[in-house]
């Protein structure tokens, strides 16, 4: 593990057993998160962006199987295969989850229990992970509510989730995630359910708090605008693979992978003059039968014969910028279009 890496994942694969067969949701991905950085994970629904993070936290549904060479968090292995038996793994995860690693979920209304007061829900992680008394935990909860900008926290603590607006609920979720000053926060589309003005407030809050507490953030999203205004580094996922990774500037200014380029061509920048939208034709691959080669091959304009047969190797452009595409390989037969039949 490099010195300042807080999370290191190697060769992560996630399969789901379903009635239709095995869904290969994440296929052999590796990535790392450094202390204090904000990493964006971008992809369409079904690209494996949420599933890969849920599997790191050990939060997958029962039909999911996780295999990995290595999942290391804060110097400690949290790879289930390094534990003998489910119980010892779960015990470790329980001490990690909500403590040093926490999660902000997408929909604040389904995450919060409607029948329990905000105060009780907010003090729960504090009471679980520390030896504080109820009174001390409550004081900490008030502190957290103030931190995330909720006015009159003392009275608000005794209210129920329905008495809060969507933006306020999301602030409470963030307060819960921050309760133990975690080293890593995984935020799964934290602003998708919110309006733009509220989204701007919540994003600023996440940015400010991660700076203040030195927490690293993994931001799962499909919104490239959100990624650009928040993240230091970006992983682009497609069909269960990380197809490109780079700093924010590398991804937006010198994208390499045809999928990244395609994504950037089909979004609008409201500050720029009008350009034509260039959609990516077709739809994502069926992960029941993932393609043997590049997952993007069926939608790629520059697809070659080799793309259908073999997964492209990673090409390294800089310490931070890597992309998996055959076009970068000198051996590939360029200009032979695989779609021309």
């Amino acid at each position, binding site marked *: 593990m490099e010195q300042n890496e807080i999370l290191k994942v190697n060769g992560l694969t996630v399969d789901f057993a379903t009635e239709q067969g095995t869904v290969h949701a994440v296929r052999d991905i590796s990535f790392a998160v450094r202390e204090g950085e904000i990493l964006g994970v971008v992809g369409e629904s079904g690209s494996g962006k949420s599933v890969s993070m849920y599997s790191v936290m050990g939060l997958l549904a029962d039909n999911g199987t996780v295999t990995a060479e290595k999942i290391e968090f804060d110097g400690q292995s949290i790879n289930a295969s390094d534990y003998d038996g489910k119980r010892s793994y779960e015990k470790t995860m329980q001490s990690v989850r909500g403590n040093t690693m926490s999660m902000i979920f997408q929909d604040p209304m389904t995450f919060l229990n409607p029948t329990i007061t905000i105060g009780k829900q907010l003090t729960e992680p504090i009471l679980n992970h520390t030896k504080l008394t109820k009174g001390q935990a409550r004081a900490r909860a008030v502190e957290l509510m103030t931190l995330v900008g909720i006015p009159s926290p003392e009275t608000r603590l005794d209210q129920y989730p329905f008495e809060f607006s969507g933006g306020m609920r999301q602030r409470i979720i963030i307060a819960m995630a921050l309760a133990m000053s975690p080293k890593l926060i995984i935020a799964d589309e934290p602003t998708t359910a919110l309006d733009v003005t509220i989204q701007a407030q919540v994003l600023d809050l996440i940015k400010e708090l991660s700076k203040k507490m030195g927490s690293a953030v993994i931001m799962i999203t499909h919104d490239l605008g959100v990624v650009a205004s928040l993240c230091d580094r970006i992983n682009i996922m497609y069909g269960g693979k990380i197809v490109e990774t780079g700093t924010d500037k590398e991804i937006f200014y010198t994208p390499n992978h045809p999928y990244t380029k395609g994504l950037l061509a089909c*979004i609008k920048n409201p500050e720029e003059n009008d350009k034509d939208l260039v959609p990516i034709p077709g739809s994502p691959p069926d992960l029941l039968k993932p393609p043997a080669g590049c997952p993007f091959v069926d939608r790629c304009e520059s697809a070659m014969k080799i793309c259908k047969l073999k997964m492209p190797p990673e090409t390294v452009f800089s310490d931070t910028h890597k992309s998996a595409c055959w076009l970068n390989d000198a051996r590939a037969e360029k200009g032979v279009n695989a779609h021309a039949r």
Partner: protein
Amino acid sequence: MPANIVKDEVVLKVDHLKTYFDATKGLFAKKQTVKAVDDVSFEIYKGETFGLVGESGCGKSTLGRTIVKIYEPTAGSIEINGRDIAGIKGDELKSFRKDIQYIFQDPYASLDPRMTVGEIIKEPMKIHGIYKTEEEMDARVSQLLRTVGLKPDHIRRYPHEFSGGQRQRISIARTLALDPKFIICDEPISALDVSIQAQIINLLEQIQRELDISYLFIAHDLSMVKHISHRIAVMYLGQIVELGESHEVYTNPMHPYSQALLSAVPVPDPVKGKEKERIMLQGELPSPIDPPSGCPFRTRCPYAMERCAGERPQMKMYGSRQVACFKVEEENS
């Protein structure tokens, strides 16, 4: 951006439209009303896309639904091709519905899972009895499927066999079945993935160019609305606060709420996106049951004056722009 708007041909004219809902809790409780749409007026021309933006709860969907009369208007008029439909009912309403169609947000919920694609697209044709034989209908369905980029042999398949983007194409084919003059698109792309959104937007534009249809495009994704719309209206708490050419409103918003709303849009550029100055709004959206007196935005407006609480600002013209704000009024007088 689609061209050929016919400015002297008004397809839809909404005048002082109000939609109120009763929100009284309990039998003897004090009567309460939600003013979901409160005195809204605008016109849409032939071949034009009119964007309607605003945050959740501002009444934009209620307005769309009132225009197709899913909700009954409380007051005001809705003129389609010069005829007021606000008060009509029964068969007369049915014949007008042919001209106005509606694309819903969620293509998973708006298509009946037990009907084939053919049955879904034929349903409006049958209701309005526009074709006599099954063959004529089949021919029309095949043609429509080609128009929206699907294959004619998809006709016997069921919705679950299609992806989200394809389902939205099916619902677009259904709205086109009756040759409408006007389509209300209520967040038609927000349930779709980014790469698929652009496909649907381009399809809607292509259909508009070919058939001269007008759209009322309701959305909260401001960048896409700017791309597709000729003019846009910004709604806040049941009222339109600013209306103008979409490019002008985006580059130079005049109403303080439009300014805050547009400054909050994340920019997909790592340098500009991180530097962008945002106008942070204080407080929360007031309840439409008990809206503020005077200007609806005054409780969160950084420029609120005494006058804003006393009376409600009216829409005034500034060049091609209409804005309802006393501050703008004072600055331009």
